[in-house]
């Protein structure tokens, strides 16, 4: 026992004095101990498997090159596998792989004492668990024969730097379903993000230089969704809106595919929204590729992607970003004219493209628009009329909105009749003529309507003036006679 202690003291001293030993570049130059050479005689070959009572097994193969590259390359095998030696190879029985790993971890602790490792918050948490009976397995993070050096113990300027002392390196965590998540953070992403002024623990609450709780998740997706809850602490307004959305409804029904905050906004590279519309539109593409493709071919999509036009609406302009409601609801349907009029009633925007703002006005003052307006109001106070009323998208298309410019009038009319017939089943071929195509009546466009309006515009004032004149004269004469 005494000799062994001296051996380890020397070994640790060597480790501190000779950084060359731990340099992976010179791994090939490292000469393994005789004992290690003897062990690798068997364990350096594939095929040796240790079975446990639970039926689990562990591969007893040791990759010599990886071991040479490890920080422990100077150790003998029995340095860790203390019950084994060149002469003695006891047969041991373990209930499970876990039990074996816990036992093996005790070997680490013979050198890496509690005092030494508790400075790291993740270790502090693990040690606390250990004392409560939840044994920690060192090799889960550090692995076994390929154990890597860990730099640390420096004085850290800030929390970010402190966390980056580990998370700047390439390592990962494994979820219960076997998925792997890289835990390496690219500082440049963080610094370029909208959150560059935040500390790590502002989002990863519960973590600090003192605390590093160990959490387990079933899957990578569950982890993402759980972490998105962090956003609520600052963005409560958006979070509340999200709770009214179809995405949240799907999520709460257990559909983990529904997007959480970070799916659209990103995590460490989070950017402020709406800086570039095409980028925002692409966020939706991930889950809605078919609709995205249709949109990209529409008059709006083409302008966005081909001409880099920032006036056009993207997904979120109609569907909103956070409180996205189901687009098949009547509420959504009835809000469509208002959505379109955000731009199509805006003279400044429409003038750029030579488009008329009359489209909204003429819609709202015609049968469809009036009915829709009242249905919206009736919904608040009276019964709910279930009859759908034609809105912009019923004729112009939804994601596939195309320009009517340059299209032959006859083709437009033929297409329009089909749209009319969806509700007005027995509409004849010239039914679209009964509507003034969003135009105000002019002598050229609708001479009959224009003439009628003009005649009455002249006739009504004459009538009213004439009648009032008669009345006043009558009263005057009556007064005079008395």
């Amino acid at each position, binding site marked *: 026992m005494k000799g062994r202690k001296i051996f380890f003291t020397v070994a640790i001293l060597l480790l501190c004095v000779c950084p060359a030993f731990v340099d992976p570049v010179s791994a090939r130059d490292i000469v393994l101990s005789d004992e290690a050479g003897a062990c690798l005689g068997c364990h350096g070959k594939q095929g040796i498997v240790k079975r446990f009572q639970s039926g689990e097994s562990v591969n007893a193969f040791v990759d010599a090159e990886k071991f040479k590259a490890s920080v422990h390359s100077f150790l003998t095998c029995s340095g860790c596998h203390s019950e084994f030696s060149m002469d003695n190879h006891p047969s041991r029985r373990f209930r499970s792989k876990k039990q074996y790993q816990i036992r093996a971890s005790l070997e680490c602790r013979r050198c890496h004492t509690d005092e030494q490792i508790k400075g790291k918050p993740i270790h502090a948490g693990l040690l606390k668990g250990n004392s409560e009976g939840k044994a920690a397995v060192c090799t889960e993070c550090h692995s076994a024969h390929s154990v890597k050096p860990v730099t640390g113990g420096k004085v850290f300027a800030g929390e970010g730097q402190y966390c980056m002392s580990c998370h700047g390196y390439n390592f990962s965590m494994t979820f219960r379903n076997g998925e792997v998540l890289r835990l390496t953070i690219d500082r440049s992403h963080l610094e370029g993000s909208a959150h560059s002024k935040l500390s790590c623990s502002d989002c990863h609450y519960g973590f600090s230089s003192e605390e590093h709780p160990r959490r387990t998740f079933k899957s990578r997706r569950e982890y993402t969704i759980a972490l998105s809850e962090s956003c609520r602490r600052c963005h409560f307004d958006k979070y509340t809106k999200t709770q009214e959305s179809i995405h949240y409804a799907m999520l709460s029904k257990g559909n983990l595919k529904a997007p959480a905050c970070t799916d659209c906004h990103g995590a460490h590279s989070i950017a402020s929204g709406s800086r570039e519309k095409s980028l925002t539109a692409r966020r939706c593409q991930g889950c809605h590729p078919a609709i995205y493709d249709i949109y990209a071919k529409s008059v709006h999509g083409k302008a966005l992607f081909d001409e880099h036009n920032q006036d056009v609406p993207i997904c979120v302009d109609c569907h909103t970003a956070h409180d996205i409601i189901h687009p098949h609801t009547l509420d959504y349907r009835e809000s469509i004219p208002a959505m379109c009029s955000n731009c199509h009633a805006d003279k400044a925007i429409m003038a750029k493209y030579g488009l008329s703002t009359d489209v909204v006005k003429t819609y709202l003052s015609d049968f469809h628009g*009036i*009915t829709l*307006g*009242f*249905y919206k*109001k*009736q919904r608040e*106070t*009276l*019964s709910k*009329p279930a009859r759908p009323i034609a809105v912009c998208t019923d004729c112009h298309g939804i994601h596939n909105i195309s320009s009517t410019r340059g299209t032959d009038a006859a083709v437009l009319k033929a297409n329009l009749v089909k749209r009319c017939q969806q509700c*007005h089943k*027995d*509409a*004849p071929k*010239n*039914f*679209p*003529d*009964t*509507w*003034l195509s969003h135009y105000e*009546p002019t002598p050229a466009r*609708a001479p*009959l*309507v224009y003439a*009628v*309006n003009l005649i*009455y515009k002249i*006739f*009504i004032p004459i*009538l*009213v003036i004439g*009648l*009032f004149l*008669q*009345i006043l*004269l*009558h*009263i*005057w*004469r*009556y007064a*005079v006679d008395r």
Partner: protein
Amino acid sequence: MTDIQTDAEVKVRRFSRGRIFEHWLAALTFTILVVTGISQRFFALDISQWLILKLGGIDNVRLIHRYAAAVFVIAAASHIVIAALGIVLKKWQPSMVINRNDFTDAVHDIRYYIGRENAPARCDRYTYKQKFEYWGILTGGLLMIATGFILWFPMTVVRVFPGELIPAAKALHSNEAMVIVLLIAVWHIYNSIFSPEVFPLDTSIFTGYISRERMAREHPIELARIEGTGLGEINGHTQKDAPVLKAEEPSS
């Protein structure tokens, strides 16, 4: 019966029950049509919105408007048929037909108003003012019925006529409605309520009777015919113990 009755107390029968019922029917359907129609035309006004919601929503209002229109069509059709039959069967005088006297009466009255004549025009059963209103409402009503039909059955109409007829009918319907409403609201309401001659209300269309005094002033020719006297004796004539006279069946 008192011994002496003044002309104001002596009543002359002017309208039969049929005409009184016709007026009630027209007034009622007209009011419903105006309320439900004008609120649709000026749908953006707060009062229209309030009214339409009170009536159970836009679909209800459109339905009420059409039912009332159907009643109005029946009333108008029966009125025309009865009037035509009455005249053809020589039961009634064609007292509502416009003739030359109406134009000269109108000119005479304007001259009277501005002080160029000493007395108003002496009219028969219907004054030129009443004829103007009657024919205005009747032709306007027929125009409303025609355009209303086009708007009620656009699919059918458009199979035969060009499509622009529909928006033109809509323009005509709502503009003509304004004409009729103004005619009633300004002319009719003045002449039967606010005119100093009848204020506070001309009750003859409700009771069927009119005072002899008013008959003498407003319809002297008719009064002379009823009483079988010369026109000259009507003015200033005070009849004592006059019997309540039965008027001939009026045409409207």
